[in-house]
């Protein structure tokens, strides 16, 4: 006989103000099989959980329904409480009467009625719940870090320094990511290269880190603790083992006028190249699209120059198959293309540049060796206008969100400019100055007070060229008047956006993403570095726009998650797996084909003499992920899914 306890949580006012919890408790108390039905202000609180435990013990409950917030919120909490009271945790279910009831309905009676249906349905389900035991699976103690920017490097180093193996995969020819492109960093103005390159070298030389550059993730299969990852090693046309990185080939390469991606188009590179002088590994790649040999079949000057015979034009992509226990995704961001703002003239006027391009101009290793010079004529600009939120916080043309770092880097740009060009004038059009962070507000004040950055609160409507000047027309909303500035250079604080292939990539690894392509965390506040897929963690700007301190902090957080995972020999997995009734299975194997995880095998049932008397399907619980696709396919109703059994769902529907 079922003895179900129903615990109705008010969640303070969140549920209690809309749903008549007293009425709900009374109605559930009348329901067949319900032994206890009580309400309380906060069941998730310590005394709340204690009262659930006491009720389980005092009444010998056979099942528990907590009518409260979403199971995605507190299912784990209450299942743990049940286990502590001696009740199998899988005999506890959550009736979601907050997110899917009290918060979304206006009429109190209707909300109460719906809450009753939801709770009753759950009571009927829980009556048919089975005691389940977690499944233990082994853990491969090797982490994969995808992305070799600062976040990826930090995560890799932290994991490796704790003694665990790491494979660090970067799709560009070198580590470094966006941080390597930056000049100086706010709020301390230390040189980005100076703090970045040692970390790159450390990662490359670390005995526990295997570095795969110019490589991309081809496929990811498996599950937490047991991923199989295939990596495509793109052909560099340079033998990484033979090359010494002397750079002779680069000097001799006749194709010299290729726009440098690393310099954001402000500098040139050769066809065989390293993105920048401090590249790690310092091994060039041949850019097939621009190589004279690949285009015309003649040249091979690099091969002739190379003393080590490292150039190989016949090289083809190869694949590496990796066994991985945990994955850190640190794939970073891109900056938005500003040509969508036709009125700002980006792409039309060479002296309208974006923030990342300004970084290259200000960088000592950049195309101008750190001098701020106009791209059009190489002259030092005397007046520079910065336009903030060029794409961010603009639902009509750009993106709705704040890119977070632009206020700070624009203040930094103004500062760097005034340090480099004495007497130069800066004007900054802004919407708000968002300078929250340690030392950030002080930094932006310094730009204004010490370096005379002129902040104008308002938007720019148009930029045009007139008499060799860039005319910037905007509005100063604090003074309430239009402004026109004749500038020599305009810098747009471009929005940070997700990588263009972020969504496709998310599908490859099987994680969620938001409407912009930033990766979804399991819980914004409480599980910010975990993805919704167990064993896959998120670091850096692939999750949302971030500055360097935040990216590094998040990367270290993922490392701690990975290390916690690797601290166990066996992992416990939710026992939501399919099982097959071999007595009724017809052996049609449709399930074998339908299973996304190859978790169903064909099994022979033998008689005593070893003769096959029957062939049936058999589910490998280690591989099964519990989607239930096989169950739905099964015509003879032989397959079933623990936790979501046919009986349970039938009862849920009939209990409504």
């Amino acid at each position, binding site marked *: 006989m079922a003895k179900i306890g129903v615990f109705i949580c008010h969640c303070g006012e969140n549920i209690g103000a809309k749903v008549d919890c007293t009425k709900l408790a009374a109605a559930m108390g009348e329901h067949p099989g319900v032994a206890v039905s009580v309400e309380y202000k906060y069941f998730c609180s310590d005394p709340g959980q204690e009262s659930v435990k006491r009720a389980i013990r005092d009444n010998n409950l056979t099942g528990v329904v907590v009518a409260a917030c*979403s*199971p*995605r919120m507190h299912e784990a909490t209450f299942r743990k409480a049940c286990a502590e009271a001696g009740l199998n945790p899988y005999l506890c279910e959550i009736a*979601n009467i*907050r*997110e*899917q*009831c009290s*918060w*979304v*309905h*206006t*009429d109190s009676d*209707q*909300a109460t*009625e*719906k809450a009753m*249906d*939801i709770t009753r*349905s759950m009571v009927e389900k829980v009556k048919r719940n089975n005691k389940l035991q977690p499944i233990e699976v082994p853990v491969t103690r090797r982490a994969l870090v995808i992305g070799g920017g600062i976040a990826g490097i930090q995560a890799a180093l932290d994991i490796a320094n704790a003694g665990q193996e790491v494979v660090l995969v970067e799709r560009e020819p070198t580590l470094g990511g966006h941080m390597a492109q930056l000049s100086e960093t706010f709020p301390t103005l230390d040189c980005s290269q100076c703090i970045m390159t040692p970390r790159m070298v450390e990662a490359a030389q670390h005995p526990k880190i295997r570095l795969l550059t110019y490589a991309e993730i081809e496929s990811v299969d498996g599950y937490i603790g047991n991923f199989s990852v295939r990596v495509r090693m793109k052909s560099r046309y340079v033998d990484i083992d033979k090359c010494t990185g002397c750079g002779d080939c680069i000097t001799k390469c006749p194709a010299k006028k290729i726009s440098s991606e690393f310099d954001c188009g402000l500098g040139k590179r050769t066809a065989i190249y390293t993105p920048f002088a401090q590249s790690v590994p310092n091994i060039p790649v041949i850019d097939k699209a621009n190589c004279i040999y690949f285009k015309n079949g003649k040249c091979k000057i690099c091969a002739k120059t190379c003393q080590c015979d490292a150039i190989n034009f016949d090289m083809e992509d190869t694949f590496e198959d990796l066994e991985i226990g945990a994955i850190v995704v640190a794939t970073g961001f891109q900056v938005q293309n500003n040509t969508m703002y036709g009125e700002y003239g980006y792409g039309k006027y060479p002296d309208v540049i974006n923030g990342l391009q300004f970084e290259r101009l200000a960088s000592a290793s950049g195309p101008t060796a750190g001098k701020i010079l106009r791209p059009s004529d190489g002259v030092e600009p005397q007046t520079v206008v910065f336009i903030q939120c060029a794409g961010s916080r603009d639902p009509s043309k750009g993106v709705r969100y704040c890119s977070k770092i632009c206020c700070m880097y624009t203040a930094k740009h103004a500062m760097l400019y005034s340090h480099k060009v004495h007497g130069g004038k800066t004007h900054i059009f802004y919407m708000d100055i968002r300078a929250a962070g340690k030392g950030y507000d002080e930094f932006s004040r310094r730009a204004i007070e010490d370096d005379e950055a002129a902040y104008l609160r308002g938007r720019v409507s148009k930029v045009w060229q007139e008499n060799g000047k860039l005319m910037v027309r905007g509005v100063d909303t604090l003074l309430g008047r239009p402004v026109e500035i004749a500038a020599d250079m305009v810098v747009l604080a471009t929005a940070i956006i997700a990588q263009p292939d972020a969504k496709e990539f*998310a*599908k490859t690894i*099987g994680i*969620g*993403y*938001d*409407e912009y392509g930033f990766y*979804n965390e399991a819980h914004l506040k409480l599980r910010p570095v975990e993805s*919704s*897929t167990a064993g896959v963690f998120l670091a850096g700007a692939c999750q949302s726009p971030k500055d360097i301190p935040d990216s590094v902090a998040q990367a270290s957080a993922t490392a701690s998650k990975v290390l916690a995972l690797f601290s166990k020999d066996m992992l416990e997995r939710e026992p*939501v797996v399919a099982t097959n009734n071999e007595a009724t299975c017809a052996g049609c194997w449709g399930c074998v084909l*339908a299973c*996304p*995880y190859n978790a169903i095998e064909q099994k022979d049932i033998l008689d005593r003499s070893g003769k096959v008397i029957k062939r049936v399907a058999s589910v490998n619980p280690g591989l099964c*992920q*519990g*989607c*239930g*696709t096989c*169950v*739905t*396919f099964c015509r003879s109703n032989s397959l079933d*899914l623990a*936790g*979501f059994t*046919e009986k349970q*769902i*039938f009862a*849920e*529907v*009939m209990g*409504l």
Partner: protein
Amino acid sequence: MPMSETFEPEIIAFVCTYCTYAGADLAGTSRLKYAPNVRIIRLPCTGRISPMFILKALQKGADGVLISGCHPGDCHFTHGNYHARRRWMVFRALLDFIGIPPERVKYSWISAAEGVKFAEFINSVTEDIRKLGPFEQYSQLIEQTQAPASL
């Protein structure tokens, strides 16, 4: 039911936990408001949603049924939703041929990020089913099950 009262349809929804259920939660945390007519049954994946569930929802007296899960390519289980889509395609044709109007069984893809789409979907489906009115033909069948079989 008096004619003056508007008909309030009963709708049962079967959703996957990773996308649509999470989207419904998001609608909640965003405090969006939508019609209270839908009761949700949470499943791990759309691949788990059996045509039998739809029949049982109708037997339970639902005037409409909703099915929703992750967008193609977004399935947490990589391709449960692709399998589901085929089944629905076939089952939908079957229901139509038997005379169960396809308008009463609605399908959608709603992601964890689409709280707004969820709320709008619930509202529009509730309105559509309200316009269709109660599923009287099916109610008759259900009533017959309670009466002794006629000779």
